[in-house]
């Protein structure tokens, strides 16, 4: 199973990948540093899941999700973000996000959100 991790922080990408492994999921990873890079990666590699930050340069996470759905791409996607605003959560879920995990997160929180998605 391939997971695309999208975050403008290299540190956070490595933390997310480590947390997914520690939560017991057998995954390989592709990385992108913003939504525009992610869009190209998704078109070329069709990951099983996209875990994206919200605030990023060039193209934000929600813009990425909206672009994917606009072109009919149903790839599973959720957010890993420091944002916890209820209005943003609503916007994310209305756009088709599967989860919105708030930083800082615990390994148990990763397990809880990814378990149902990757079952």
């Amino acid at each position, binding site marked *: 199973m391939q997971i695309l991790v999208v975050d403008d922080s*290299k540190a956070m990408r490595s933390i997310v990948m480590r947390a997914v492994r520690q939560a017991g999921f057998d995954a390989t990873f592709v990385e992108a540093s913003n939504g525009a890079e992610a869009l190209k990666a998704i078109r070329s590699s069709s990951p099983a899941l996209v875990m994206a930050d919200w605030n990023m340069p060039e193209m934000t996470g929600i813009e990425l999700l909206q672009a994917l759905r606009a072109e009919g791409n149903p790839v599973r996607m959720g957010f890993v973000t*420091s944002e916890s605003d209820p209005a943003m959560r609503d916007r994310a879920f209305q756009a088709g996000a599967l989860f919105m995990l708030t*930083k800082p997160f615990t390994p148990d929180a990763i397990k809880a959100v990814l378990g149902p998605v990757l079952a």
Partner: protein
Amino acid sequence: MSGAVDFGALLPHLEAAFAEVAARALGLDPVEVERRLEEPPTPYQGAYLGLLAARGAIQVGVASDEAGCQALSRGLLGLPEGEPPLCAAELADALCEIANIVAGGFKGRVRETTGSLAMGLPVFFRGPAQPTDHTAVRVAVLRAGAVRVALLLMHPKAGKEG
């Protein structure tokens, strides 16, 4: 953000946001507030980002000295003691992410006071934040585990928003 916002009252929310991040993501516990200032400490480095409201903006930042920034970054990355120091780019990236996470927690805590805030992207800096005629800075100096950290809250002076 209305002119009635008491910016001094926001500082404890920034401290609480940092304390949560320190405990859950940096492995730095406990966090104790040593003092609060209205001028920037020097010499410091760190990261800050803007929180934008319909009227006006504030910036929040996390700063320390070089050793402190290394410790904060190693904590975020889960690196053990004794590892070689992070290079400048790694340090800046990690500090920016810490500031980002702290700002997110702060934003959630002050939502009812400030109204909706839009988060900007973090910026790494070296040296003191310099208040101007239009801006003021409030600082909380904390000890997080063995690391001394300064939290910065830069805001418009009363009557000078925008």
